[in-house]
C-alpha cells in the first residue's frame, strides 16, 4: 500500500497557508498590517515585495488583491483599532502588528475596546479579530523587538492567547483563531519560523484550550511555552539518561489554559517545572504555578520551580542575550532540585 509522503512546511509558511485557506473559505476574512504586501501601489514586480516582515503573507495579495490584503501605514492604534471596528461590523480581520512589542502602541484598542466589547455590551457583539505578532529572543533584535508579552494579554478578560510551538499547530491553531468569535492574540516565535515540520495540505483546526503532551513521563511535569518546548524536550532527554522521567506539556494556548491536562499530569508525577521565556513577575509561569499550588498542592512532592528569563528587558549583545532565555541546563538543574 502506498504511503502518502508527509509534506513538510516551515511555521512561517504554515501560518501563510492558514491565512490563505481562511480567505478562500470566507470572503469576510481580510489581512491588514504593516508591509503585509510591500511596495503597495507601485505595481508590477515592486508590488508584493515583502509579503510580511517574514514572508508569511506573500501568497495572499496576488490571490485576493488590495481590497482584502491591505498594507497599512505605521499607525498601530489606527489600524488595530480599525481591525476591531471592522470585526464589530462583521468582518474577520487578521491584523499583522509585526512584533509583540509594537502592540503597546495599540494597547487601548486591544484592552479597552476589543477585549471589553462583548462584556460591556451584554453579549451583543462578536469580535472575530486575530492579531498576529512575532515574538521572542535569539536574533539580537534587542529590547524593543524581542519581548514575549503574552502574559500581558493572558491577563485580559475577553482576549484569547495562542502560542504555537510547531508548524502543524501553527496552521491548525491559526485557522481556529480566525474563525473564533473572540479577539485572539497569536504569537509566533521567531526562532521557530524556519524549522520545518509535517503540515497536512487540507485545512484543519485545533481547538483552543487543549494542551499537547509532547513527551510522556512519570517523575516530573515540565510545562513549556513556544520555543521553550524544544528546550524542555532536550532537557527531558538528558534527564532520562539520569533515570528521571519527565512529562513535557505544551499548553499551546494560554487563554484559555488547559488546566486539566496540567493538573492531571502533576497529580501523577508530583513535580512541576514551568519554562517561560519572559520576565518572571506576574508571568504565565507564575499563573501556572499558582493554579497547581491551589488545585494540586497535595500531589506536590516539592516546591514548584519557575524557569524564566531574568526580570529585565531583552538585551542586545549576544553574550547577554544567550543568558536571557531559559537554557536546557537551567531546566535540567531546576528538575534536579525536586527529583
Amino acid at each position: 500500500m502506498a504511503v502518502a509522503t508527509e509534506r513538510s512546511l516551515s511555521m512561517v509558511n504554515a501560518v501563510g497557508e492558514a491565512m490563505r485557506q481562511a480567505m478562500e473559505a470566507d470572503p469576510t476574512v481580510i489581512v491588514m498590517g504593516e508591509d503585509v504586501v510591500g511596495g503597495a501601489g507601485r505595481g508590477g514586480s515592486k508590488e508584493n515585495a515583502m509579503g510580511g516582515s517574514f514572508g508569511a503573507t506573500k501568497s495572499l495579495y496576488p490571490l485576493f488583491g488590495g481590497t482584502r490584503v491591505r498594507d497599512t501605514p505605521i499607525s498601530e492604534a489606527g489600524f488595530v483599532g480599525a481591525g476591531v471596528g471592522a470585526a464589530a461590523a462583521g468582518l474577520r480581520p487578521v491584523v499583522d502588528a509585526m512584533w509583540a512589542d509594537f502592540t503597546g502602541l495599540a494597547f487601548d484598542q486591544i484592552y479597552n475596546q476589543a477585549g471589553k466589547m462583548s462584556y460591556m455590551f451584554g453579549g451583543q457583539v462578536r469580535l472575530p479579530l486575530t492579531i498576529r505578532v512575532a515574538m521572542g529572543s535569539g536574533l539580537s533584535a534587542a529590547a524593543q523587538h524581542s519581548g514575549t508579552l503574552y502574559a500581558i494579554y493572558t491577563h485580559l478578560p475577553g482576549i484569547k492567547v495562542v502560542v504555537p510551538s510547531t508548524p502543524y499547530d501553527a496552521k491548525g491553531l491559526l485557522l481556529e483563531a480566525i474563525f473564533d468569535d473572540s479577539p485572539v492574540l497569536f504569537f509566533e516565535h521567531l526562532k521557530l519560523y524556519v524549522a520545518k515540520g509535517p503540515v497536512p495540505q487540507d485545512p484543519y483546526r485545533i481547538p483552543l484550550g487543549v494542551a499537547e503532551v509532547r513527551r510522556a513521563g512519570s517523575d516530573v511535569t515540565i510545562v513549556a511555552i513556544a520555543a521553550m518546548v524544544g528546550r524542555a524536550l532536550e532537557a527531558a532527554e538528558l534527564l532520562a539518561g539520569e533515570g528521571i522521567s519527565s512529562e513535557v506539556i505544551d499548553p499551546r494556548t494560554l487563554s484559555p489554559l488547559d488546566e486539566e491536562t496540567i493538573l492531571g499530569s502533576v497529580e501523577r508525577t508530583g513535580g512541576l517545572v514551568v519554562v517561560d521565556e519572559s520576565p518572571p513577575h506576574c508571568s504565565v509561569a507564575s499563573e501556572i504555578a499558582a493554579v497547581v499550588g491551589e488545585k494540586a498542592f497535595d500531589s506536590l512532592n516539592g516546591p514548584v520551580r519557575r524557569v524564566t528569563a531574568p526580570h529585565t528587558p531583552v538585551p542586545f549583545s549576544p553574550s547577554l542575550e544567550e543568558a536571557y532565555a531559559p537554557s536546557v541546563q537551567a531546566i535540567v538543574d531546576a528538575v534536579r532540585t525536586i527529583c
Partner: protein
Amino acid sequence: MDVSADTLRSLHRTMLTIRLFEQRVAREFRTGEIPGFVHMYIGEEAVAAGICANLRDDDYVTSTHRGHGHCIAKGCELDAMMAEIYGREDGLCKGRGGSMHIADFSRGMLGANAIVGGGIALATGAGLAATVRGTDQVAVAFFGDGAANQGVLHESLNLAAIWRLPVIYVCENNGFAESTPAAYATSVADVASRAAGYGIPGTIADGRDVLEVLAAARDAVARARAGDGPTLLEVKTYRFMGHFEGDPEKYRDDEERKELTANDALGSLEARILADGHASEADLDALRGEIEAAVDHAVEFARASAFPDPSTIERYVYPEQIA
C-alpha cells in the same frame, strides 16, 4: 436651506426627546437611584439630530461618554436605554455597560465609549467593513474637542484618507475637555483645519443651527456614500451642563454661559417651526407631553427591571458564554 416641514418636525422631535430624556436622567441621578456617573448632552442636541437625520438604520455610529443623544438620534429605544443607565437586566447591554457604554448593534450603534477618542478607530473599521463588502453604508465617529488631540484621530484620518473610507469624523467642539478649554489645549482655532493635513475636506457647522448641521452632514454623507472618502466635520457647540452631573464647574465663565445658552438650537428650531406655521403652540405642547410620557414610561420600565443576577457575573466575556 430648503427643508420640508416633515424634516423640521422630525429634527425637533429628536432634539426634544434628547433634551427631555437628559433632563430626567439628571433629575433621577440626583436622587441617587442611578449608579456611577452621567454626562449630559444638553445643549448639543442639534449635532446628533442633524447628523443622524442623514443616516440609515444600517449605517454605523460610534459615540462618546456623552452618548445618550447619539443613541436616541440613531433610534435606540428609550425604555432599554434607561434600563441600561439604571444598571438593569432589561437594559440594552443587560446592565453590563451603563451610561458610558450604551450600544445597540441592531441599529448600527457600535457603542458609547468612555475612552476619549475610543470610538474613532472603530468607526474607521466599520467604514472599512462597508468598503470590503462593497456596500454604500457609511460610518460616523462622534468625538469631542478633547479627542481632537488624541493620536488615534490623526492615525485614523490618515488611514481613512488613503483608503477613501466612507467615514464622517464629527468633532463636537463644546468648548471644554472636562475642565480644560479647547482654546488652551488645541493648537488651532478650528479642529476642522486639521483636515488639510490629511488632504480631506474639513468643514465647520454652527451647532446652534440644526439646519446648518444637517446640510453639512448631508454633503459629507453623500461624499462617503459615493466613494469619495472621509470628511472631518467640526460642529461648534456648547455644553450647557458640567462635564458630569455634580461637576462644581469652577472653570466656567457665567457671562459666557449666559450668552451661549441664550442661543439654544432647540429654542431656535421651535421658533422657526412656529413662525413658518408648521406647528402650533398646542401642537408643541402635545408633543412635549407625549415625549414626557415616553420618558416616564422609560423610568418606570427601568425601575421595574431586575438587577442582573450576581451569579451571571462571568457571562458575556466570551461569546461562547452567551447561550
